[in-house]
């Protein structure tokens, strides 16, 4: 699997994500700096990592969404290349309008950093094929702005089209309908606040996140 990790000033989960991809696919991803206007050819996955891109100035992800590399990411997403946005990456994808809705300040105001239980809502996507629908998994969260909000019509559409990929099993940040991760209409873009890349080897305290990357690997024709 040929993958790329986008790196913004202020990204801080880029190396965790690169290590998870290397571990699962056996190939290190290309690290692509935000100023690049082109991505490496033949990518099977573009990963947008967590962190505090551009210091979260104005709104989390707002500045990163306008960086040169995001034009290339948007074009690739429109061509069907899988794009995974984790935490700040999810915020960037909503600001870039690759995913609907917005991520607001947590309802409890405070930063939340702990392991949380998630329910896999859709096990049919390229990202979740190795999970069972309704299965509960544990990923860590570490965010201040993870409170997913969209208008009722958008939320209904996401639910109706099976685009809610993960839902929090308990209260975490005030997200509308407990949404933790969503897919775009075509199913090739996933954004989620929890960190699957921090649950890929036993030393992490669990390996529930590993199957997300294994499923992707399988989807691009190179089973783990």
């Amino acid at each position, binding site marked *: 699997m040929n993958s790329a990790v986008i790196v913004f000033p202020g990204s801080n989960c880029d190396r965790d994500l690169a290590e998870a991809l290397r571990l699962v696919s056996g190939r290190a991803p290309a690290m692509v700096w935000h100023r690049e206007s082109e991505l490496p050819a033949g990518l099977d996955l573009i990963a947008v990592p967590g962190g505090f891109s551009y210091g979260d100035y*104005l709104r989390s992800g707002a500045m990163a969404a306008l960086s040169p590399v995001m034009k290339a990411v948007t074009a690739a997403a429109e061509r069907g290349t899988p794009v995974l946005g984790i935490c700040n990456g999810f915020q960037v994808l909503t600001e870039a309008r690759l995913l609907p809705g917005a991520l607001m300040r947590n309802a409890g105001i405070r930063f939340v950093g702990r392991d949380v239980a998630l329910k896999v809502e859709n096990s049919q996507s390229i990202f979740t094929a190795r999970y069972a629908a309704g299965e509960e998994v544990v990923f860590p969260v570490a965010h201040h702005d993870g409170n997913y*909000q969209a208008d009722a019509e958008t939320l209904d559409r996401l639910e109706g089209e099976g685009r809610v990929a993960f839902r929090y099993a308990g209260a975490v940040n005030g997200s509308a309908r407990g949404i933790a991760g969503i897919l775009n209409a075509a199913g090739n873009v996933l954004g989620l606040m929890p960190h699957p890349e921090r649950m890929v080897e036993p030393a992490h305290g669990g390996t529930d996140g590993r199957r997300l990357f294994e499923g992707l690997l399988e989807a691009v024709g190179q089973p783990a």
Partner: protein
Amino acid sequence: MKVRVFVTLKNGVLDPQGKAIHHALEGLGFAGVNDVRAGKLIELDLADGTGDAEIEEMCRKLLANTVIENFRIERAETAGSLGA
């Protein structure tokens, strides 16, 4: 030309920061605070003659996230009127 852009959360969008400020005001003993909504004020110094349409585009493309926020543009009547 000085322009102020007020970015506020749309009605119905829960405002965690406004709520915390509300609680803090109550904690200080201020009675009768019915509601608090927090927003942003962005001051722009623009070339004279910058049109409304262009300022609105700035708001839509960057200054506000129209999924959750509204914006209001206020032009200063005279240069310098934004001073303290």
